[in-house]
């Protein structure tokens, strides 16, 4: 069963410019940002990946393009996970939003925007969710100074 879906996924998702490998029992697909929305649509409608687990990013400060945007999906039917990775540059850290497919993306994309400054095209509400209004910068980027604090109240003394 598990090997069946694995072979299907590798066959279906690998294509020109993207490859599907297996890491710790998870299918990992690296793809171009433009191919993201179409791939997720197929994952949801054809392959049964009905649960959107998370979206986060990885900062590689010396690499160009600088950021990996990483998605995880789970299939409650096949009990199987898939990971999508796409690269975006620092100058234009934009990927398509998934809120048309998964409602929960609304909040996870806000968190990713807070922490890494990734912009999700199509998500109209990218207000801070874990941070606060007026917070300058993105604290999980490697170039955010470790000790930099942005207090909201005036300190005593």
């Amino acid at each position, binding site marked *: 069963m598990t090997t069946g879906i694995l072979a299907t996924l590798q066959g279906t998702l690998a294509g020109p410019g993207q490859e599907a490998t297996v890491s710790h029992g998870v299918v990992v697909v690296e793809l171009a940002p433009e191919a993201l929305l179409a791939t997720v649509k197929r994952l949801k409608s054809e392959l049964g990946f009905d649960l959107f687990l998370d979206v986060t990013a990885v900062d590689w400060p010396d690499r160009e393009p600088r950021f990996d945007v990483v998605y995880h999906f789970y299939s409650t039917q096949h009990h199987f996970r898939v990971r999508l990775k796409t690269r975006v540059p620092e100058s234009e850290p934009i990927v398509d939003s998934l809120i048309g497919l998964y409602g929960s993306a609304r909040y996870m994309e806000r968190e990713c925007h807070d922490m890494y400054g990734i912009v999700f095209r199509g998500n109209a509400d990218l207000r801070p969710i874990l941070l606060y209004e007026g917070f300058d910068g993105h*604290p999980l980027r490697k170039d*955010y100074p470790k000790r930099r604090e942005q*207090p*909201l109240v005036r300190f005593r003394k």
Partner: protein
Amino acid sequence: MNAHLQRPSPALEYLTTKKDELIGWARKFSLFPYPFVTACCAMEFMSVSSTLYDTDRFGAALPRFSPRQSDLLMVVGTVTHKQAPVLQKVYEQMCEPKWVIAFGVCATSGGFYQNYAALAGIDKVIPVDVYIPGCPPRPEMVIDGIMQLQDKIAGSRHPIVNEKF
């Protein structure tokens, strides 16, 4: 009428004390804590409040969940920069006299959190009377902290005592 009520024992007819000491003695045994509980230290707070260690013995028994009805603010756990205005507001809503205990190392100094999110010690925002470090503090340390606060209350001036009293 009973005869013994008409003639009370001479030893208890009057009591001499200082006014400040009297008020301090009354206040130190009627602490009404407001638990501002944000993190894992809450488990230790429950432990120290419940039967085995029992802060009731020190008069600090009944948590009041309104800052307006309490006089001891117990900040238990990490306070973030986002929460600091809330903590300040809670403190300002408490009536005088009021005291603050920083419970655990995060409330005391930020502990090992030194980053964009955590406030490095609540004393940057509100005044603190007793610091109880530890991650989490042992119940014995908390009891010691409460007793130190009681000593502080008993030994301080209470401006309620004036020439009219």
